[in-house]
Structure formats: structure tokens, C-alpha cells
């Protein structure tokens, strides 16, 4: 599915050289991954159907664990079930917070704007539906992530699809298939980490920074500004991931939840300021979901847009989250599955919905010519004139933390592929930094297309593996539910 022309070119000259080279690569990749079929006049990328089907199937297969498990998930995050001997290890809260820091990013701000630009307000409805269903997908993949994680010789922990694909399927005698899927996943993850987890982030951060500093005539308006911005951002990321200055990463990660809360508060202020218009906005969203007006592909077109943006935002089914969740301290893998189902809820059902309501309620989406993060920015500006500056800081922080998270996913995949080679790690990180610059200099349609394609490609080996391992997850879940029912697993405060 080709995304509309959402060019945010960083200026002429140098930028266009980078842009031209990248466009060719991007087009080829997109044609392969977003192979589409046309049914009843609607062009349908199979990979979105693949993710949507997984979310529905897993919700049914685990008997609505996304709803049934919600309260228990909160209890686990609060630490109600954390025994005294587990204190000092990675808590459920910490594993979730790390994963959410990596997930909450521009997908929540810019991605929602893209969805509404293409699919109209109705895309919001399908984003929420997709978010709720994909909680079950996350449940399954993160349970597997913990179940098949590996404790390295130095005591550190490695987990994620690479490990459950190879080790999990090996258990079932499918050694070669497991190895093949794990390698495919790792390759896609490396490329995905360069695209959506990286280039798209710096692209949108640059767009917003340029816009608040005076647009084309401002500080970042000149030619080559995109490259310059990218280089500065790359230096910061490089200092952390190559220089090992953990302090910056640690500070950023602490700021991200604060910014997320701040962002949601700002949305609530905007909504509060337009309180009377909320019913109408909700009406528009529901109406647009089922009887869209002037949207290509009608209902299915809107639905696809919503599902696609939701997937890009909450990453369920892609296999990135299990990497972040797998370091948790637990001897019951399914507990982290429960906790992980909160992730799409926070990301998509809460934060994306807030952005969408803000955009719809202020009518910002009806203005022609504003797209991506700038559309969101404009929606806020209509109520809080100073907000674009704060949003620029938020966007920069989200972009930075998402880049750090994805560089970690990419580095873990590189480590898996090249047997923990130090050289491969350094090369990967160098290329990662280069893509920060490419992202800032290249136009959005090219970047977003490439990143979409690579990130969605991860879902192919990942979900094949998850399907094959579903019975393992089911068994873990059943045993855990029995232990809860029989009182083997109770809150610490109720233990005798």
C-alpha cells in the first residue's frame, strides 16, 4: 500500500542526493513486503491481514486473555506477587516500562496523524480495535520471549524471537525451520531497526524542530540542515550506544514516562477546552469507521489504515517487544505475557486515542497540506499556542528513546546472527548512526515506506513461530491459571 505523498524534505542539495539513492531501495522493498491483492476493487496488503488475523485468532484461542487477564496484569505490575527473594532483580514494572519507553514514540504522535490524513477520523476506531485485539498477540509473544530466553555465560540475559524461534522449535524437532525463521527474523529486525525504529524517528523529529524554529526561513530551513540535524542526533546516539555513556540513556528513559504523562495531560486540556465538541468527535470517528466519506477503499480502506498504523505504533506481532520484556525476574513466563498485554493498551488504546481525539476535535485534519507530526502540532496549537515547542522537545525525546531501544533490538539480532561478534556489533552501530542522518535528510514518504516494509517483514517469521508454539503458551497459561485457582499463586500479602 503506497502511502500518500507526505514529503518533509530536508532541503535541496545534499539532501536530494541521499533522497534519490534511498528512494530506489525503498520502492523495491515496499513492493515485496506490501504485496497486495485486490478484492472487490479494494487493494489489500496481505501483511496487514496477517497481523489482524493473528490478533483475532489469539484473542479467541486464549479466550479473551486481553480482557480476562487485565486485572491480574495490573496486580503483577504493582508487585503484589513479587516475593522478597526477587527484590533487586528486574521487576514486572521495570520490564514493562522499558518496553513502553521503546514503543511509545512517533507512532503515537505522527503515526496517528498519518492514519487520519489517509483514512479520515474513522481510522481511529479501527486503531483502537486493533490495539485491543493485539494485546493477545503481545501476550503470546512475550510469554515465549521469557520461556526461551538464554542466560549468557557472563550472567546477562538474551531473549526475543531469535531465541524462541530457534530453541522453541528445536524442542518440537523442527531444528532447521527454527534456525531459518530465527535468522530471517534477525535480518528483518536489523533492517527494521534502521528504518522505522530509526530513520522515521529522526525524520519526524527534524520536521518538528524545523517547524518550531521558523520553517523554511528559520534556523533549520536552509539546504543541508537535514544532514546537519541528523549528524548532531547521531552524535548523541553514538555517544550512548558506542561510547557507552549510559548516563544519557538512563536520563532519557526516565524523562520518557514523564513526557508521556505530560503529553496525555496536554491532550486532556485540549479535550477539556472543547468539551462540548467531544460527542460530535466521537460521532465522526464511529461514523467514519463504518460509512467513510471520500476515502479510497471505503470501510476496508479505513480499517486497513487503522490496523496498519496501530501495528506500527504498538508493534504487536512484530517480535520487538519480547526482546525488551525477556529480562524480567520470574519463574513463570506467562506472568510477563500478562504484563505485556498492557503495552498495546497504554500505547494504542490510551495514547493514540488521545492524539486522535485531539486532531479530530480541533478539526486540524480538515486543513489541506499539513501532515505527519505537524498536523498533531497544529491541533494542539489551536488550544495551547505554546505547545508546539513542548511537542518538539517531546518528539525529540521520544525519537531518541525509540532509537536507543531499536538500536538495542538490532544489536541483539546482530549478536545472534554473528555469534556475539564485537566487530559485527560495531559495524551495525555505525550503519545505525548513518541511518539517523539519512532519515533526517530524506523525505517522509520514502522513509515511512521503507520503515513500514521492514518492520512488517519481521512479523512473518515471528508469527509463524508463535503459531507453531501456541500450544506451549496455552500449557503455560493453563498451569498458571490452575495454580491461581488452587491457591499456589497468591499475592505476597496473602501468603502464610
Amino acid at each position, binding site marked *: 500500500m503506497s502511502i500518500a505523498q507526505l514529503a518533509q524534505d530536508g532541503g535541496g542539495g545534499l539532501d536530494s542526493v541521499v533522497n534519490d539513492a534511498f528512494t530506489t531501495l525503498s520502492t523495491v522493498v515496499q513492493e515485496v513486503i506490501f504485496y497486495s491483492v485486490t478484492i472487490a476493487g479494494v487493494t489489500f496488503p496481505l501483511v496487514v491481514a496477517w497481523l489482524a488475523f493473528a490478533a483475532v485468532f489469539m484473542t479467541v484461542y486464549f479466550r479473551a486473555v486481553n480482557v480476562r487477564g487485565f486485572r491480574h496484569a495490573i496486580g503483577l505490575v504493582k*508487585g503484589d506477587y*513479587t516475593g*522478597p527473594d526477587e*527484590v*533487586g*532483580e*528486574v*521487576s514486572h*514494572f*521495570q*520490564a514493562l*516500562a*522499558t518496553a513502553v*519507553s*521503546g514503543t511509545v514514540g512517533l507512532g503515537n504522535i505522527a503515526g496517528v496523524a498519518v492514519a487520519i490524513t489517509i483514512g479520515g477520523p474513522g481510522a481511529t476506531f479501527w486503531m483502537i480495535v486493533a490495539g485491543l485485539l493485539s494485546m493477545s498477540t503481545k501476550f503470546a509473544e512475550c510469554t515465549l520471549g521469557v520461556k526461551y530466553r538464554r542466560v549468557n555465560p*557472563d*550472567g*546477562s*540475559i*538474551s531473549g526475543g524471537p531469535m531465541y524462541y524461534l530457534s530453541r522453541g522449535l528445536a524442542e518440537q524437532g523442527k531444528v532447521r525451520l527454527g534456525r531459518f525463521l530465527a535468522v530471517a527474523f534477525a535480518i528483518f529486525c536489523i533492517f527494521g531497526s534502521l528504518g522505522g525504529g530509526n530513520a522515521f524517528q529522526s525524520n519526524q523529529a527534524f520536521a518538528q524542530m524545523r517547524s518550531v524554529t521558523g520553517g523554511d526561513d528559520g534556523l533549520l530551513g536552509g539546504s543541508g540542515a537535514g544532514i546537519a540535524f541528523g549528524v548532531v542526533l547521531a552524535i548523541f546516539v553514538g555517544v550512548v550506544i558506542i561510547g557507552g555513556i*549510559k548516563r544519557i*540513556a*538512563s536520563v532519557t*528513559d*526516565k524523562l*520518557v*514516562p514523564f513526557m508521556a504523562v505530560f503529553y496525555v495531560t496536554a491532550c486532556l486540556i485540549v479535550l477539556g477546552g472543547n468539551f462540548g465538541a467531544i460527542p460530535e468527535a466521537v460521532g465522526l470517528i464511529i461514523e467514519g469507521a463504518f460509512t467513510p466519506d471520500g476515502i479510497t477503499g471505503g470501510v476496508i480502506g479505513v480499517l486497513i489504515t487503522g490496523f496498519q498504523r496501530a501495528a506500527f505504533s504498538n508493534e504487536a506481532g512484530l517480535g520487538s517487544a519480547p*526482546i*525488551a520484556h525477556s*529480562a*524480567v*525476574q520470574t519463574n513463570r513466563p506467562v506472568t510477563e505475557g500478562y504484563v505485556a498485554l498492557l503495552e498495546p493498551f497504554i500505547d494504542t488504546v490510551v495514547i493514540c486515542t488521545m492524539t486522535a481525539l485531539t486532531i479530530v476535535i480541533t478539526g486540524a485534519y480538515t486543513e489541506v497540506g499539513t501532515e505527519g507530526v505537524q498536523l498533531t502540532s497544529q491541533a494542539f496549537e489551536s488550544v495551547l499556542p505554546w505547545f508546539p515547542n513542548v511537542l518538539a522537545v517531546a518528539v525529540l525525546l521520544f525519537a531518541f528513546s525509540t532509537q*536507543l*531501544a531499536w538500536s*538495542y533490538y538490532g544489536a541483539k539480532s546482530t549478536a545472534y546472527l554473528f555469534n556475539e561478534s564485537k566487530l559485527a556489533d560495531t559495524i551495525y552501530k555505525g550503519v545505525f548512526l548513518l541511518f539517523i542522518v539519512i532519515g533526517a535528510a530524506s523525505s517522509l514518504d520514502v522513509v515511512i515506506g521503507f520503515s513500514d516494509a521492514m518492520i512488517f517483514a519481521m512479523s512473518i517469521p515471528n508469527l509463524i513461530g508463535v503459531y507453531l508454539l501456541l500450544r506451549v503458551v496455552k500449557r503455560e497459561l493453563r498451569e498458571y491459571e490452575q495454580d491461581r485457582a488452587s491457591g499456589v499463586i497468591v499475592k505476597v500479602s496473602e501468603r502464610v
Partner: protein
Amino acid sequence: MPEVIVVGVDGSEAGARAAHFAAQHVREPAQVLVAYVVPWSPYTVQTAEENERRSVNKQRETESAQTNIVDPLLAELEDKGLKAEGLVRHGHPAEVLCEIATERSASHIVVGRRGQSRVRALLFGSTPGNLIQIATVPVTVVP
């Protein structure tokens, strides 16, 4: 069973003072339990790298506290002919000291104080300050 006194230490001069105070005032056959609590909260946000190495780091923190802080104090106390035992835990210092006191049926908790300014104490809290609010046994704060 002999009486147990918990001494909370933190590697500072204040902690050492608390241990020595306990040593002077304890009556045989009471036992001194030197406890070091590594400040740790399950509700912080950490990077993925920090998480993957957490187990290793926890062990390292425990060993380092045992060797550098608890063991030297134990040696000093034993020189004075006292029966002493060491313990390193993770968590909220005041809460964990209370938990230890309850677990071991201790009769008393002794801690030092660092003489924080009001602003610092307001911003970061202080272990003795928290301790006296939640302890279930008498607390002695050694200046």
C-alpha cells in the same frame, strides 16, 4: 534465644558510628546483626541494557557491600568479643530494616545519621526519619 539488635549501616562514617554504639551498649549474650540495604526500587525506569545485566549487577552489589562494608565492621565487632552477623539486602532501606527486625524478632534497631540539611531531607528523605515512623521496635539514632 539471645536478644538480637539490628544495626543499619550504609558505608558512611555514620553507619560505623551506629555499629560501635551498638557494640558499646549491647549486653552479652545479645547478638548484633549488621545489615546493609542496597537502595533499590522496583518502580524505576531502566534501559534494556541495564535490565539484561540486572541479575549480574545485583550479585555484584551484594558481594561488594559484603566485602567492603559489612565484613570490616564484623571484624571490628568480633575483635571486641561480640557475636555479630552480617546481612545484605536490596530494597527501600527503612522498610527493609524493619522487615529484618521482624523476621529476626529483634528488640532494637540502631542507625547513624548523616546530618542532612532540611532541604536534602525533604527532597530525598532520610532513612532514620522514615525508620522512626514505621518501626515496630525502638529505634536509636546515633548522631
